[in-house]
């Protein structure tokens, strides 16, 4: 499932900016985004376009095991790709409002 939204924020360190968001997501919801090793499974991923005062966020929580989801760079359609490190999120999918409440 894709959650896409924009926030009026700026950052000086884009990598830390993304890590902070991942940590907030993983703290608030039982979703595994980080993978300590290249063999660990994940329930989702985050992408951020760090435009000043207009950060764009794409947060994915995967709906099917073995099926990675991402946004097409132009059309924004969800692209599905096979990946055996992807594990379906078995919890209750948060609403868009709940996701955005981390800010």
């Amino acid at each position, binding site marked *: 499932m894709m959650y896409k939204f924009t926030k009026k924020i700026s950052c000086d360190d884009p*990598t830390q900016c993304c890590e902070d968001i991942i940590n907030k997501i993983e703290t608030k919801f039982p979703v595994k985004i980080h993978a300590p090793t290249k063999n660990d499974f994940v329930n989702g991923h985050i992408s951020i376009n*760090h435009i000043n005062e207009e950060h764009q966020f794409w947060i994915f929580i995967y709906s099917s095991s073995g099926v*990675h989801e*991402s946004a097409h760079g*132009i059309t924004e359609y969800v692209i599905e790709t096979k990946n055996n490190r*992807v594990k379906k999120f078995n919890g209750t999918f948060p609403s868009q409002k709940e996701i955005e409440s981390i800010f």
Partner: protein
Amino acid sequence: MGFGGGGGGALPNHEHTNIALDGGPLDFVNTTIASLSAGSTTFSDGNALQELVIGTPAQSLVVNGLGTAPEWITPAAGGPTTAQYIATGASFSTSSVTFVDVTNMTITLPNTGGTLDCLCNVFMSGEIAVAADMLMWRLVKDTTALVYSEFWLTGAAEGLKAGAMSCLCDGDGDPCKLQMQTFGNTGTFRVSATEQTPCLSAFAVG
């Protein structure tokens, strides 16, 4: 004095040579006249002189296709026939374990109809959040990966790494895009207004 000699009588047979009284050479410097247009040049077709009227501005004088006469042609434009270029203004981060499109790094290839006549280049700089992870990059034409590169990074303390990828592909109007992934930690395609300006370009070179 006309060719009739001015004194009456037929013009005797003669040649235009340097021999005295043989007619002498024709004076081509602002003296001899002919029924030509301004700017025309003359050439021989083997039997008689022919007029080639002047061409248009920027045309070049070349030998015709049969190799028998001069002609004016309009030269083809030189250099790349088509170029596409994009430089994004914002950094892009992802934690994806599969390749994802980097925002604003997609261009449309020139459409030449040729084979391997399009040169694609991308310059990128990146960093990663933690040690024991890596940044992987690839250029994709439509859905086909063209070229791949990776940065091994020991952690954020290592700072930015920069690299480039380049390849030839068919110029057929397909989209060409930069994709990236990590092993599951944050990797950033880094843009700095003062130090790094990553860009993606494609040129028709055939």
